[in-house]
């Protein structure tokens, strides 16, 4: 296999920088990094271009500068962290070079002289294998696809200048509340519409607490009922989880959701509807009322401690 000579990595989180430069080292010879965040986060790159900490500026203001760099350096492989800003800059790069971005890839590998990406489509009903139609490949990469390499401080660090016509930053507000890290949780309790009302969510939180887990939910719970924030929603278009144990409560088992939990080691389903599709996709299922079952389980796990 012939390696891409220069790989350009665009990332805005420390873990993104570490993982994507790790992937770049496997797929290419020389890594150039474009990054934001803490200045000393630049690792494993010959040259690093710094966008600043972005506390008082929008990532979007740097897109023209990033495009100029791409046009000047002409890298054959560009890896972009799959954040919301990342998706936008990946699209701008793709439009500039005339390719489609391989987004949310689960795997990116070189086969012969081509780079193939695999991703989920149709709400998880299928996996699509695709490649760029031209010599340049642009891929948007999420957490956990590549392994971080051994960290070595970057060579030269050069500051990039912001400047995008037609867009002005008015203000930035940091997110309130604690960050839930569902994708790293060992145990996850999933909340579905079957909870009936928001007050019953305490039952799920209690169970999660008794086993040291986190609480996530199905799409309707976050987006229609708005009982939980969007970040808590598990599914193809939300968070993909891979816990030791996933306990789906009052969740029917739609393809979208089940694909998001498919990597769970064990799935337990609690649902009063015997015909719910989730019972076809779980390891252990119980047909009954979650309002009785959850407190009973919580008590048993608490008593054990």
């Amino acid at each position, binding site marked *: 296999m012939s390696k891409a000579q220069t790989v350009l990595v665009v990332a805005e989180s420390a873990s993104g920088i570490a993982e994507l430069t790790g992937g770049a080292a496997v797929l290419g010879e020389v890594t150039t990094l474009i990054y934001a965040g803490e200045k000393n986060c630049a690792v494993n790159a010959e040259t690093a271009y710094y966008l600043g900490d972005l506390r008082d500026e929008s990532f979007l203001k740097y897109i023209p500068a990033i495009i100029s760099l791409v046009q000047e350096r002409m890298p054959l492989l560009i890896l972009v962290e799959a954040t919301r*800003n990342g998706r936008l800059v990946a699209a701008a790069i793709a439009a500039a070079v005339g390719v*489609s971005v391989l987004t949310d890839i689960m795997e990116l590998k070189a086969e012969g002289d081509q780079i193939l990406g695999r991703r989920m489509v*149709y709400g998880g009903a299928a996996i699509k294998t695709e490649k760029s*139609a031209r010599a340049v490949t642009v891929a948007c990469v999420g957490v956990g696809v590549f392994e971080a390499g051994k960290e070595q401080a970057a060579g030269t660090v050069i500051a990039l200048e912001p400047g995008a016509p037609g*867009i002005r930053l008015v203000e930035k507000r940091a997110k309130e509340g604690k960050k839930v890290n569902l994708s790293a949780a060992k145990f996850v309790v999933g909340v579905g519409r079957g909870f009936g009302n928001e007050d019953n969510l305490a039952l799920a939180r209690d169970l999660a607490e008794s086993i040291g887990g986190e609480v996530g939910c199905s799409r309707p719970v976050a987006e229609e009922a708005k009982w939980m924030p969007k970040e808590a929603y598990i599914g193809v278009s939300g968070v993909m989880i891979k816990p030791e144990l996933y306990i789906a409560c009052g969740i029917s088992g739609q393809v979208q959701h089940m694909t998001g939990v498919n990597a769970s080691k064990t*799935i337990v389903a609690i649902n009063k509807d015997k015909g719910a599709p989730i019972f076809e996709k*779980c390891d*252990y*299922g119980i*047909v009954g009322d979650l309002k009785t079952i959850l407190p009973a389980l919580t008590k048993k796990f608490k008593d054990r401690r």
Partner: protein
Amino acid sequence: MKTLVCYKLVPEEEEIEVKRDWTLDLTKAQWKIGQYDLNAVEAGMKVKEESGGKGDIVVLTVGGEMVDNSKLKKAILSRGPAQMYGIRDEALTTADSYTTASVLKAGIEKIGDVDLVLCGEGSGDIYAQQVGAVLGALLGWPTVNAVSKITPGYGKITVERSLEDGVEVLEVDLPAVACVTTDINIPRIPTMKDILGAGKKPFTIWSLAEVGAEVVSGSETISTLAPDQTARLKIIIEGGSEESIDVLYNHMRKLV
């Protein structure tokens, strides 16, 4: 202000069947408007309401023969837009994000005088979350994604972007492209009156040649196959009695 909302027709994923060779059979699936696009249409209607009811809302889609399906045309128009445009070609059924964006761009230029283009977060089938952003770049207009609030202004819009670590408020000059999040609003459910009224609204279907576009793909699909499903034990316990909860707990306690 003229707002154009892009949408995509997609197969109902619950009705996609897997063939013996792990390829997909879409022939039995019903088609629908991509669920994330409904938020974009609703956002367009809200922009109009907040502009004192002034301005036009039109919708544009590109795709295969479904573009001309009268039920689906009514479905989109019943949600409020004044007019529907479609660009139809069989080659667009499997178009990738670059092709889709290029053809949408040609359509938008043909329609003319568009001030604001709204897109959903991603398509309901492929969900690459790219088309709106690529479209904005190809048009050369200011482009924002992850938009969870839009306030129309004079020659500009003010948007809130929901990012991983907080919210960013931006002023964006028009014309612009904005891709909205799925939690920006709850799309309205059309009433019977809306549905009947939709049948009287104008629609225009163009061929690729009529908008002066061609299919130039930015990616090649090697295969689209059903994934391996993790084998599950499927041990189902009936009833929520104390004994059955005990049985479940005994399975679970070994795992925690």
